[in-house]
């Protein structure tokens, strides 16, 4: 079964007079329960591809399917609903809402979904414990370290039990220890809950964890290979 299917995706950007190719006829299929890394230098198109998969950005042409839903033809509101219920996001650091505490950040998505209060509380306790943040539930983002903030973001992404989590450079602002912890967390979530992970990164520490490593350059997929595990990473 496929979690995501992309067919012939194209996307160009205009920067001044220059036309930049974001995606150049990219076709790819992501299996359910897989753990995939999109790698490549800046401007290679990995973030564009990730955004397209998450329904944050629409391609100029091509098709994207997430589960049974075709994203590229959906309206703004329907896309928002899709993101809200089916996809978890983890961005670069500092993507928490600064006026909300750790718990409130986690509950935020569920609250917008309309999950009942008791259930929200139970879930947020559970996921915060799962990411190792017991006792820090009521801290504001400014009172947490970068790694802790990123774990709150992960907790938020998985709180609504999505089948798919998309992460864009999740370790960009983290030290090695925090980065390793975060990746270990991703890995265990993938193994225990069967959540599909797609991570865009140019951090080699992250690539080691991937079962499938896709390399991109100039909007093209230049390699796509399965790997064993993270054992090779020190």
């Amino acid at each position: 079964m496929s979690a995501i299917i992309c067919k012939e995706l194209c996307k160009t950007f205009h920067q001044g007079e220059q036309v930049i190719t974001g995606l150049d006829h990219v076709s790819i299929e992501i299996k359910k329960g897989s753990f995939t890394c999109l790698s490549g230098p800046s401007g290679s198109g990995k973030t564009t591809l990730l955004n397209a998969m998450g329904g944050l950005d629409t391609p100029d042409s091509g098709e994207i399917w997430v589960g049974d839903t075709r994203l590229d033809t959906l309206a703004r509101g329907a896309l928002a609903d899709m993101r809200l219920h089916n996809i978890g996001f983890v961005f670069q650091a500092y993507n928490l809402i600064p006026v909300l505490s750790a718990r409130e950040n986690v509950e935020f998505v569920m609250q917008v979904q309309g999950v009942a209060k008791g259930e929200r509380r139970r879930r947020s306790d559970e996921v915060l414990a799962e990411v190792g943040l017991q006792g820090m539930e009521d801290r504001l983002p400014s009172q947490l370290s970068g790694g802790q903030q990123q774990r709150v973001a992960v907790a938020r992404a998985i709180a609504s039990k999505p089948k798919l989590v998309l992460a864009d450079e999740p370790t960009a602002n983290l030290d090695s220890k925090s980065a390793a912890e975060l990746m270990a967390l991703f890995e265990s979530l993938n193994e225990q809950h069967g959540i599909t992970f797609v991570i865009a990164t140019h951090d080699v520490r992250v690539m080691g964890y991937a079962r499938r490593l896709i390399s991109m350059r100039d909007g093209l997929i230049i390699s796509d290979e399965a790997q064993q595990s993270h054992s090779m990473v020190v």
Partner: protein
Amino acid sequence: MNASWLVVATLAWRNLWRNYRRTLIILATITLGVWSMIFMSALMRGMVDEIVRNGLETLPGEVQVHAPAYRRDPSVVNSMAMPDGDFLQALGESPVVAWAARVRVPAVISSERDSRGVVLLGVDPSAESALGSAPDNLVEGRFLLGVDDKGVVIGASLAKRLETSLGKRIVLMSQNPDNDVADRGARIVGIYKARLPGTEDIYVYAGRAATQKMLAMGEQISEVAVTADDYRAVQSWYPNILEAAGDELEVLPWTALDTFLSSMLAVQDGFALVFMVVVFLALSFGLVNTLVMAVFERVREIGLMLALGMKPALIIGQVLVESLYLLGLGLAAGNIIAYVSIRALENGIDISSVAQGMEMMSMSPVLYPALRFSDMLMSTAVVIVLGLAASLLPAWKASRLDPVKALTKT
């Protein structure tokens, strides 16, 4: 839906205090605006109330009944009979609280030193008091004792002009229905001061029966003045009197008797709204500016919320709720300060330095601000409705942000 609005409400509230200086300044702006709306309305209401009340006191009454030709030609020949039958009965029915039958004719009053043209009022002192048109400030002597009282009560200013005083005799001159000069000597039994010195020169009070005898007009009277103590409600009971008085008489409410007074009321109601809208427009620039800034600073966060799947409608809601908090807090503070400041000035603002200018507008030299619930309500409505309308644009802009671009904005 409820839960998501709750999160919006929480977010909006906390966002408000991230930049507390800006929030406090805009709150001060809204408070000042709301206070000025209510305070200014209260001053204007006080002013107009005063003008209308003074006007009705000398009119007097809220409804008057005359012989049809009287108002054009206020002469003794254009008189009417005392109310009887249905008419008399109607005058006794609620909401009428008092009525007075009066003789009112132009006359000349002479002392041994000088003469003046005046309006001679033949009144029943008890009815006049009930009507509220008897002079309320007698500085010397007494008011009339009954319809047969042979004395007269004149204004202090008139007494000065005539170089006469309490207890002295004056001569009243007018004409009787046969066109002959009717005159009688009378003693001054009382001297009054009026709120408006102008009226002191004009009105001379005498007993009604004594006046009827002097003018040889039998039991006839010039007018019936009726009051129900609430000048704004006159239209509700005026038709009763109109019907009961019959076709032979002219029955008019004060709005028709004194068009200046009624137009004052209408203009003032309109002006209060114009003033409120103008003040609001002046402060709306600051409000919109604050919201634009608030959205601008939070572009990344808004992008994040959109990326997480928050509906654009909720983003609009969030900005509107934030605006609503500002408006609500400003309104509360403005209303409270307005209430307190108006209550503090309830005993009147002394404006005697411009007393004669005020007299030109039929006002006395003390201004009583009149706080009205409807003005507080109107200012609240203006601020909320226009405030939300003004917030729509920044809110809509925020909801249209592209999450990808917004997220990467530094």
